[in-house]
């Protein structure tokens, strides 16, 4: 284990907590089985869905109830210890990594607290898995609209932290548009209600500010979400094209036609072939250079008319074939291929970069051509699978990190791709969040004063910067912050009554107890 950065002389002995002392106290709260402190058991918590990044946590604690979570946060607050909240660890920006500090896993908080069918809302704990909630409300003709591709594994708490989207957010909006209220424990241990469960609220939209704060503002312990009635009719089309450009133009044409599809997804040739080689083979034409998966939903009559319009737009735009799923089974199969595409790329090479950027929709043909040119220039295979309707690109590169030369080329290609997206007037992330991965790009799209305004907002929720430190906004962008040796955050001039965040002391060497 890495030695502590701070020398004992700098840390007053009265506030020293050894790792075992902290672990013991946490075990008193949650039970011994739910505190991990052995290095070998913490290994699996050193990465999330983007395994290229690894940060070794010092301790992991898994509260089993809201009360336990409150006790854990308050204990850590009292000790002045920093922590990282974690859901299912499916995030794709390294946002849930804890560098030598405590991980609070919220996956055990998986109760659906209440379901109000008449008013179409549900209150859940943060560890409830997105798909579980959907299965729970489906018998009542309702659904929870945000559907990230990881819906089978990711938690609602994580969705709130990342402001998760998904294919259907083109029409239905992202997590932000579906969360009404939250009970939040601030890093200080104070509990606040953000938003309103039963109506609208005046004043600052603290709910809106909290959603997408990537675990830097505290932990949502109860989340009230809006549920959406299942549409009367859903129709899914698959259009295939012999050129990426044609599919990109058709995307713009569909949007321009005034129809808001429930989803409009794009997959390019390399992606199609990877999917077709996987167990999720969806029957996509292997020889196509691009396919569009278009879903329309709503009232029967309107969908039927829109279906014809979309079909015509596709064929006018040089689609080779337009196929409409005949039944639910066929529709699910078409979607499986899309939703599991990212995992299927694991077959190509041992390592994978899953990129996330947004561009204005009209720039799709241009940017896709640029990405293609970049991939040729560096001799890498870029698989494009993305939410075309939103202009939310996911250029992915499978490669072998064991090959330094290839890694270097991939690295350069990714920088150029991001540059192209930024130059097109886009954003560096549409749904994966900034986390660790995108932090370096923040200064490319935000000015110093804008980044500082974000730091200030964070400081209101978490004045000691103990919740998910070192993420989202680069430390040096925050005026009154500064980094100390080892990159650990300290408060420059801590108020007298505030404990300073500090690392846990390493355990004195002793023989293994087991």
């Amino acid at each position: 284990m890495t030695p502590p950065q701070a020398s004992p002389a700098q840390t007053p002995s009265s506030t020293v907590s050894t790792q075992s002392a902290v672990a013991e106290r946490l075990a008193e709260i949650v039970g011994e089985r739910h505190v991990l402190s052995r290095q070998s058991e913490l290994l699996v918590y050193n990465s999330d869905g983007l395994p290229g990044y690894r940060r070794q946590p010092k301790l992991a604690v898994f509260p089993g109830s809201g009360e336990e979570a409150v006790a854990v946060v308050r204990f850590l607050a009292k000790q002045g210890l920093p922590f990282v909240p974690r859901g299912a660890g499916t995030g794709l920006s390294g946002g849930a990594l804890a560098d030598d500090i405590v991980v609070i896993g919220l996956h055990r908080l998986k109760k659906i607290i209440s379901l109000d069918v008449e008013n179409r809302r549900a209150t859940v704990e943060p560890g409830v898995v997105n798909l579980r909630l959907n299965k729970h409300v489906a018998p009542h003709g309702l659904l929870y609209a945000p559907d990230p591709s990881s819906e089978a594994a990711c938690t609602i708490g994580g969705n709130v932290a990342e402001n998760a989207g998904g294919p259907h957010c083109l029409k239905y909006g992202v997590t932000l548009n579906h969360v009404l209220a939250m009970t939040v424990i601030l890093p200080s241990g104070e509990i606040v209600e953000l938003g309103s469960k039963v109506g609208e609220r005046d004043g600052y939209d603290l709910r809106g500010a909290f959603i997408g704060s990537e675990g830097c503002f505290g932990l949502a312990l109860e989340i009230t979400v809006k549920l959406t009635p299942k549409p009367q009719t859903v129709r899914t089309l698959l259009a295939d094209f012999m050129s990426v450009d044609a599919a990109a133009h058709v995307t713009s044409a569909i949007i321009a036609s005034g129809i808001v599809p429930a989803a409009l997804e794009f997959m390019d040739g390399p992606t199609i072939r990877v999917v077709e080689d996987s167990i999720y083979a969806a029957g996509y034409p292997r020889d196509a250079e691009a396919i569009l998966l278009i879903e329309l939903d709503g009232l029967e009559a309107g969908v039927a008319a829109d279906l014809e319009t979309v079909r015509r737009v596709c064929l006018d735009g040089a689609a080779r074939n337009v196929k409409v799923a005949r039944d639910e089974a066929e529709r699910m199969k078409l979607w499986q291929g899309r939703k599991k595409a990212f995992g299927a790329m694991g077959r190509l090479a041992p390592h994978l970069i899953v990129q996330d950027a947004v561009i204005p929709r009209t720039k799709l043909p241009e940017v896709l051509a640029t990405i293609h040119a970049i991939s040729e220039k560096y001799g890498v295979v870029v698989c494009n699978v993305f939410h075309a309707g939103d202009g939310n690109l996911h250029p992915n590169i499978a490669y072998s990190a064991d090959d330094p030369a290839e890694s270097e080329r991939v690295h350069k290609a990714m920088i150029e791709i991001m540059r192209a997206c930024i130059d097109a007037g886009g954003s560096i992330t549409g749904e994966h969040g900034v986390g660790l991965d995108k932090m370096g790009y923040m200064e490319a799209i935000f000015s110093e004063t804008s980044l500082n305004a974000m730091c200030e907002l964070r400081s209101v929720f978490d004045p000691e910067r103990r919740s998910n430190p070192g993420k989202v906004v680069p430390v040096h962008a925050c005026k009154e912050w500064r980094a100390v040796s080892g990159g650990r955050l300290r408060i420059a001039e801590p108020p007298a009554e505030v404990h300073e965040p500090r690392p846990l002391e390493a355990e004195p060497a002793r023989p293994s107890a087991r």
Partner: protein
Amino acid sequence: MSTQAVVSAVKESVETASPLRIEARATWLDAGRPVRAHKTLSLRDDSGVVGYVPGDLTLTVRAGTPLSEIEQVTREHDQWLPLDPYGTSDGTIGATLATASAGPLSASFGLPRDLLLGLEFVNGRGEVVRGGGKVVKNVAGFDLSRLLTGSWGTLGVITEVTLRLYALPKVDRTFAIALKGSEQETGRVIHVITESALSPYALQYFSRPAVRALELGEHPVCLIRFGGNDAVVRAQVNALSQIAKPEETESEIWTRVRQLDGSAHTVVRISSLPVQFRAASARILGDDVGGIYVSIDPRRGVLRIVVGGEDANGDSGTAAIGSSVDFHESQGVIFEKLPPDIWSAVSPSVVSDPLSQGIKRAYDPRNILNPGILGDLM
């Protein structure tokens, strides 16, 4: 007027410790809100389109741009910004967002915060800050756009905004259903419409006095607006005809609905669980007190009471509100407009919680932006 001019004005105010009242057309801020400022920073002239790519369905405008101008610019490309806040289209987009004002379309298209993609503002230190971006999906950085929406100018002077547009529907028709029957019968119609698969653009119920002011007759009325392709509108009209007797009315009616509170001295918005409204709607709509206009949006869960129309009688008005609405059952009682002298008595600060206070102090440490408008700092 430019962002730089706003920066200079704010910096000057900081230096001279003279708070600013921020306005553009000065329509919403005329809501009687108690702003303690002698100087006014007007964004009236800071208007115009900055960027509009119809294919992207996004529009970037200066904050002082009136809604009517946005309507006109987007209509040329068969697009619109589906925001219809109460008042007139002379109001500006900046004020609409700063006050988070929403109208009947919001149950379908979302509140102002849902249509905002990014913005630029000048904080209370005279620094230019941008939040969000110009694309329709974006999670880069903490969400300053949502924070500024509904902050009534107290955290920053909004100077520029990027909005999400929609294509204008091919067909846009509005129908009125007169609720002539007994309270029970009215309740039944409301229930059936709510439970139906109809998916209207807007749906509102109006009490008798409001209906009279709208010149729609003598009975409570349900106004319902359908949009989309021809087939979907026709199918819904047919379905509606099975339930009730809808009469088509010109879309202009919505403009009049928005202007109902023109001469009001008090506007109260009560929001609650949609079901609670459904239960009480029939009874509330039956009340007939002169000068008190009640409208109900059952899908959004909002009941709006406008007091002080031309034939208003102040005392009975207040009594009527009390008799119609059980304040204990609804959490969100929001005063949109009040006579200036009763603000402090009726509406305590809505930003008195520590988080809101902290944000205010961080963004406007000298308290020079619209001080007092949301209540006082503790």
